């Protein structure tokens, strides 16, 4: 035996005698993971989270989360001798006087954007392929929690430097807090330790940003991954893949190398962005003061939709009995986001209620085969995009020579009109794609090759699909509408009443499908073409 093997053996023996890890590892090192590019989206989130922890820890060594007033005398000359908060001054110090400081700040900010973009892309992938279905509803809920906390964490993060832009963001957050009926001004005074801006808010959100929320993230991500591990990953339909198996590559060595390598690639891309692409140049904004602002104040993209919603809100307040309710803040700032995120969290349960489907699903859906869900997803996406556009209305107005009023009115009307249209178009598109699938299974692919038959007729040669291709296009199950009778056999009205009616309507809409062709249909038309 080689010495290296001997040493490894001794160490392994030492650990195993104390943990019994060998048995578990033996089984799990050969665990199978299916391979698909869209499964890397979730990995991007995990890796950018690790990058955030690393770069964030670096930043804490110099960042001073204090609103104590100091006079700046660092190396950035334009702000010399200006009075500012210690947190702004220390952010300038990191950016200009700590070697690699600006790079790390930019890596941290880029990683946060990639983290959020990755979460959104991953969420869409999971939604459109139906990966949230039984048994994975818990993981969907954890995911909704992660995206919500991600938005909060990102907002707190870019609020920390206490520059003019981030201070404006905090001012808006304070106004939302203050608008909550009955307890609003108390909440605001408790959060800010008195009147805005006070001296305690940045130290407080610093603790939340670097300790409390990362801790919760770590816990949620761990459970998220443990469930993926335990339930085994979903897979796309294909030859040899069933609900009862998982086809892919073993953890050791292939997946370790690929996933490990991918971590370095994500980190490398983030570092490259941090090196060449300037982000949040706080030194250009100046220190925060409540009396000033700069034009084009914009939050990061994952907050932009919320800002757009606030911008398009109707100017309504209720004044009654000596009290004020600001609908123009509550509706876009709390009520609508609340409905959106609650709806998102409940979606798996609503869908299973509509379809009556209580079976486990490990094979993913092709989005076209579930037209209603796909259309709903596209509709929600359209809604978010329109309000996001309005969040950037000032920038769009200056770049495209429009007025803010035009964009605001377009999005105000569009946010109500466009999503339903998108729903209908998407549903029709899905059904058309199903028809196209049916067509090529029955008649093969068009080859563009024309052949003249002996009697002079021209026909285009169609190439028959391989059995594997036919299987992929036809393997999905065809939903049947739930039969919820209005009356029972004795003529007594169904007690579920309106709820049952809604359910059966939705279920019927859901079952609208172009039937997948069967083998016998192909045989029936298999006349003289092939």
């Amino acid at each position, binding site marked *: 035996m080689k010495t290296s093997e001997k040493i490894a053996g001794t160490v392994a023996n030492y650990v195993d005698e104390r943990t019994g890890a060998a048995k578990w590892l033996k089984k799990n090192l050969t665990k199978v993971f299916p391979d698909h590019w869209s499964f890397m989206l979730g990995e991007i989130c995990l890796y950018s989270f690790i990058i955030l922890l690393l770069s964030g820890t670096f930043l804490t060594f110099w960042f001073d989360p204090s609103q104590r007033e100091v006079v700046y005398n660092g190396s950035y000359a334009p702000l010399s001798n200006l009075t500012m908060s210690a947190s702004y001054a220390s952010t300038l110090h990191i950016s200009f006087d700590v070697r690699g400081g600006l790079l790390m700040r930019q890596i941290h900010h880029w990683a946060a954007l990639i983290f959020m973009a990755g979460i959104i892309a991953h969420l869409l992938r999971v939604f459109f392929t139906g990966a949230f279905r039984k048994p994975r509803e818990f993981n969907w809920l954890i995911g909704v929690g992660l995206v919500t906390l991600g938005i909060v964490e990102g907002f707190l993060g870019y609020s920390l430097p206490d520059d003019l832009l981030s201070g404006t963001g905090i001012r808006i957050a304070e106004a939302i807090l203050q608008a909550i009926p009955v307890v609003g001004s108390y909440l605001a005074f408790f959060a800010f330790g008195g009147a805005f801006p006070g001296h305690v808010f940045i130290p407080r959100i610093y603790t939340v940003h670097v300790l409390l929320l990362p801790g919760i993230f770590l816990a949620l991500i761990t459970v998220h991954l443990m469930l993926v591990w335990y339930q085994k990953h979903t897979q796309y339909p294909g030859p040899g893949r069933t609900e009862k198996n998982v086809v892919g590559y073993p953890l050791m060595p292939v997946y370790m190398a690929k996933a490990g390598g991918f971590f370095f690639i994500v980190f490398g891309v983030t570092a490259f962005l941090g090196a060449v692409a300037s982000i949040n140049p706080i030194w250009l904004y100046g220190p925060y003061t409540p009396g000033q602002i700069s034009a084009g104040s914009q939050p990061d993209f994952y907050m932009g939709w919320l800002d757009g919603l606030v911008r398009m809100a109707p100017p309504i307040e209720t*004044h009654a009995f000596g009290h004020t309710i600001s609908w123009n803040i509550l509706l876009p700032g709390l009520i609508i986001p609340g409905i959106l995120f609650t709806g998102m969290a409940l979606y798996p349960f609503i869908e299973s209620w509509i379809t009556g489907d209580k079976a486990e699903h490990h094979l993913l859906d092709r989005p076209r085969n579930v037209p209603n869900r796909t259309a709903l997803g596209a509709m929600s996406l359209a809604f978010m995009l329109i309000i996001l556009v309005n969040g950037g209305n000032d920038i769009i107005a200056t770049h495209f020579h429009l007025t803010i009023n035009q964009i605001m009115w377009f999005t105000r009307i569009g946010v109500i009109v466009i999503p339903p249209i998108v729903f209908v178009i998407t549903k029709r598109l899905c059904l058309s794609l199903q028809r196209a699938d049916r067509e090529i299974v029955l008649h093969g692919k068009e080859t563009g090759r024309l052949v003249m038959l002996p009697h002079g007729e021209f026909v285009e040669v169609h190439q028959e699909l391989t059995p594997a291709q036919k*299987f992929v296009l036809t393997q999905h199950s065809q939903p049947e509408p739930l039969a919820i009778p209005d009356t029972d056999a004795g003529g007594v009205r169904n007690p579920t009443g309106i709820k049952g009616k809604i359910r059966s309507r939705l279920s019927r809409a859901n079952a609208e499908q172009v039937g997948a062709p069967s083998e016998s249909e192909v045989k029936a038309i298999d006349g003289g073409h092939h």
Partner: protein
Amino acid sequence: MSNEISKFSDPGLPEHVHRKTDIDPKAEKRAEQQVAILFVLSALCTVLTIYSYLFIKTDTFVFLPIMGDTNAHQLFLGIGLAGSLLFIGFGAVHWAKQLMPDTEVVALRHEMRSEDVDREDFVQTVKERAGTAGLGRRSLIKRSLGLAVGIIGLTPLLLLRDLGPLPRKQLNTTSWAKGTRLVTDPGNKPIHVNDLEVGAVAQVLPELPAGTERTLENIGTDAVLLIRLRPEDFQLDSERLSWTHEGIIAFSKICSHMGCAVALYEQQTKHLLCPCHQSTFDVTRAAKVIFGPAARPLPQLAITVDNKGYLVAQQGFTEPIGPSFWERSS
């Protein structure tokens, strides 16, 4: 249903196709060398990182085509770091794709649900254990425990009480009062009525009593915009008109929507625009909201001049400034 019965059958896993590296030892050798080259490139990039950290001065700039002048120290440090990470990643992935086994493996899934017998055992165990504790029987213990656990939640809430003072009347008050002089920001200089030309706009603050230092909280409530129009431009009722002085009108600069500074003034249209959410206020009509989400005009500050011709407030604000809150009465 007929179409269920005659569904296309699953042809099973496709046959494994060998890669070039599996059958051609030369290709295998080449792939191995490529992986090694990638790892060596990573090491070289780390050398670049170290070099940049130690030897490129932090105030050196280089010109980049799209980015313009860029700090060379942080640029090469970052490129070195990015390269050293990326090449490790590329190497590992290339290794996995070219040289590690690429045969797909099949593993079986098991239903998540426990076996019936295990579930029954579980229920039995829970019932038995709970029974030994007497959770079902001892309702006195159950209720008193419920009380204790229910009420203990108050402690953390109580302990959070000292996070901040009660708001009391603070949201209703500013530093403005009868006779307070308007002073420039920055500069703290009193403003003579002749200092402002028609069309001019200025940010002002109240003069604070000698010895008082201005805080950010003060600015957050006291900031006022001063605008001078021609007196005939106003469309105000007589009271509001009496709050102006020779065409000079003053509004709270803190947006009545969400408290941003309403800092954009359009001289042509005489509109004030808040850059946060685009609420637009018409200066000639006492800052009436003409567009955007704000529901109330900006509070107007009544001004006049003292005997030396300096602008002063006639009185404090007659309503709370800034965003709305529950206790606000109008």
